[in-house]
């Protein structure tokens, strides 16, 4: 008996030792400064995220953890409170986020006074970040002598099957284009624009992409002659001197801003507000405009030199309330129209 007992004791001691050695004590998401890390969800491309975040960390000492995905998925994660819990949603077009505006809390940044009139944070919890008009991106090497100046030109037969369009169900930039189409081709009445949409879908020849990056990359790589994307996607290539041309639809351009939104009941409110202030501050907005090809929402920051001034374009303005209500059904209707446009199964 004594042997057994002593052996068990020795065994238990060894186990404890092993466990103790193994115990590392994992910490929660924390910054090196000892403070907690700010969790930011963002659909932005990495080229935009990395420099901004790095500068924010260096100048404030707040550590940031960024999680990237499509806007729809990120909103879902915020809604379901998935781990790690989001503090700030940075990006996401206003028309996509507005229906879920109740997930975010009010904050008026210190820069609100310098924000352009049309981009003021009227709702209180939807601060604007950058301005993103919807544009057409043309690959000059592939377009030949085809003239494309607006939506109507996209119906030309020689463009059939060579148009890069993303599925509005998954991409917010595609959603913006859908709304834009309806308003532009419906001449202010979205219901009248569906006729165009049907003709447009037929000219897609069954090709619909499932990621917004595929649109601008596809055009740049020469897979498509023309693409429907947002300005920044195309502007990089223009700035780099690639054979790309940006066309602002002559029927009218809707420019929907994206924003920076603070999630309700965030535990890192101070850091989140500092972040919102930073990305809407003059420094960050200048750098974004000058080097990253986006239009600032501030009055004191010029757009990149290679982008036209908005006064030279035909701007359209959608009814945000209407859009928020109808968006789901419009997206569904587009899906149905596109499905109908596909050639019946079995035919060549």
């Amino acid at each position, binding site marked *: 008996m004594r*042997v057994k007992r002593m052996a068990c004791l*020795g065994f238990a001691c060894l186990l404890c030792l*092993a466990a103790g050695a*193994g*115990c*590392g004590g994992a910490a929660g*998401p924390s910054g090196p400064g000892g403070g907690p890390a700010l969790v930011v969800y963002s659909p932005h491309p990495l080229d935009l995220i990395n420099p901004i975040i790095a500068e924010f960390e260096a*100048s404030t000492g707040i*550590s940031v953890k960024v999680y990237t995905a499509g806007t729809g998925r990120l909103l879902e994660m915020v809604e379901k409170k998935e781990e*790690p819990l989001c503090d700030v949603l940075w990006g996401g077009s206003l028309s996509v986020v507005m229906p879920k505006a109740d997930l975010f809390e009010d904050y008026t940044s210190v820069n609100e006074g310098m924000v352009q009139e049309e981009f003021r944070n009227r709702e209180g919890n939807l601060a604007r970040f950058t301005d993103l008009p919807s544009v057409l991106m043309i690959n000059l090497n592939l377009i030949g002598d085809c003239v494309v100046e607006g939506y109507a030109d996209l119906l030309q037969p020689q463009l059939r099957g060579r148009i890069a369009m993303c599925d509005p169900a998954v991409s917010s930039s595609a959603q913006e284009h859908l709304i834009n189409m309806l308003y532009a081709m419906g001449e202010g009445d979205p219901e009248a624009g569906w006729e165009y949409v049907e003709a447009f879908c037929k000219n897609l020849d069954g090709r619909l992409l499932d990621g917004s990056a595929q649109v601008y990359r596809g055009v740049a790589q020469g897979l498509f002659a023309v693409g429907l994307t947002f300005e920044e996607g195309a502007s990089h290539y223009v700035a780099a001197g690639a054979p790309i041309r940006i066309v602002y639809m002559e029927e009218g351009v809707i420019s929907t801003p994206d924003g920076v939104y603070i999630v309700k009941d965030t535990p890192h409110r101070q850091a989140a507000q500092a972040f919102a202030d930073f990305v809407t501050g003059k420094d960050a907005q200048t750098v974004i405009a000058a080097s990253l090809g986006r239009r600032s929402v501030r009055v004191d920051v010029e757009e990149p030199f290679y982008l036209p001034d908005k006064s030279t374009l035909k701007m359209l303005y959608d009814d945000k309330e209407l859009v928020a209500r109808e968006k789901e059904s419009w997206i569904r209707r587009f899906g149905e129209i596109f499905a109908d446009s596909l050639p019946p199964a079995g035919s060549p």
Partner: protein
Amino acid sequence: MRKERYFRDELRRLFMEYAIIPAVILTAVCVLILMAVLLYGKSSGSAAQLEAVSGQLERVVTGYRQNLEQLVERYPLFGGSLDARGRARVFEDFYGTAGRLGCEADLYILDRDWDLLLSNRGEVPGFLTPWPDISWGLPGMMEKHPGQTVVRLLEPWKNTDGGIALGLAAADPRGAQGCAVVLLGRDSLQSVLDHADTQTIIADRFGWVYASNNLNFISASNQVAPQLEQAGRFFSYDKHLYMVSRRPVCDGLFQVYVISDIQNIVFSLSASGALMVAALGLMTLWVLVSTKKVTEKKTRDFYRILDVMEGAGNGNLDSSIQIENNNEFRLIADAYNGMMASLRQQMENNRQMAEMVAAAQNKQLASQFNPHFLYNTLENIRYMCLIDPQVAQRMVYSLSGLLRYSMDSAQPQVTLGEDLEHLRNYLTILEFRFGRRFSCKIDVEPQVLSQKIPKLLLQPMIENAVKYGFGDRDTLHMELKAFLRQETFVVICRDDGAGMTPETLTELTHLLEQEENTSRHFGLYNIHRRIRLLYGPPYGVEIRSREGQGTTLVVVLPGEKEEPPCCES
């Protein structure tokens, strides 16, 4: 008989406790110790690597920082007054540092308007392009901390890869303002990382990676994976187990991570440990099953002995223990069997002795009351009554003495003296009967008179001699001697009678050795048998005879005066 079960179960339990359980515990302990040793080995290897990389990084950053400050102190860098020789000296200084630290870097000297004055590279890198009116990046940091060297990890930007930048905006000895920047490219420290067998990552305090020799733990945005940042000593990633050691460098500006893959160690040791335990488990099962049979077999002999002993306790003395195996139990069994056999033998001897004594007494009685003897003696007495009444009186006296002695139921042993007394009575009668035809001389040493002999030893010898010794002769002379010889007591009865034929002698000698008497020579057999029963061999009666010359009976008895061991009272 439930007790026997406990013994067997004890054996099995003992086996379990002292063999199986220690073996299992020992295996577990060995596996744990081995794992600990291997992990320790890995960890010290990692520690050495961590030491090396951290040390080198610290040295390089500190070295270049000092060099930067020295350059600004010593040379008039920013005023534009540096001639060719001056530039050469600056470069010498800078390249000297690079050589000493074993690590290349790029140097940029700019004036207050951010124009490039001096560099080992041709053009101004993107991160040094100034931002008018705003504070951003390295230029912003340098302007915020004038006169201090700022250290920062730069992300890839436009056409540059970035790296660790040290910047100092200050005034040179001549008072001109400007800034000096040293950039450690991402491959500057590659040599330290390349010669490692563990995965090493150098990152800044926010997790942005400067350099590494592996992409496993780096996210798409070039940051350290969150699981690694939050890990303790061990963490699991992508189904592998890793051991981490980390260290902050340069006052926490950078973190160096060293990650070792211990999946193999842990997995193989756990697997072999589990295998051993499984094997031991199987062995335990087998042992449990087989010890049953083995202990049964081993203890069967033991229980056989017990059974027979128990039977003996209940009175059954005939059973003997049969053990086939040649072991200790066999020894016990043989000893026990021998003991029981001699016990039985002794009991049988005692029984026979009692029988014999009774028989002798009976026979004696019978012979005493032998009609011939009585008839003849009474005839003689009747005759003597007429001739010599005194002799007749004496004969009656002797006869009554004879009868009294033989009816006296005393011990089977008497002293020689007593039996001689009795014999004299008999001899008297014989002498009266035969007259001068018969004589018996008694030659006995006085000290042997107290020797113990079986009762009724002497008379049958005389009777035997008288019955057969006369034959067809007239006279018979007998001699009776008794003396001590060494350890024995010898009684010799000699007659000069007819003797026996050699065949008769042989037959009689042979008869004496039998355990049962089947002949009519009862008397001698009786004596010999009783002596054997009382004292055992080699004591007994020896017959010597020569035809025509006579017969001698030699009786040998033990010389002690004590009681023989198996005497019944």
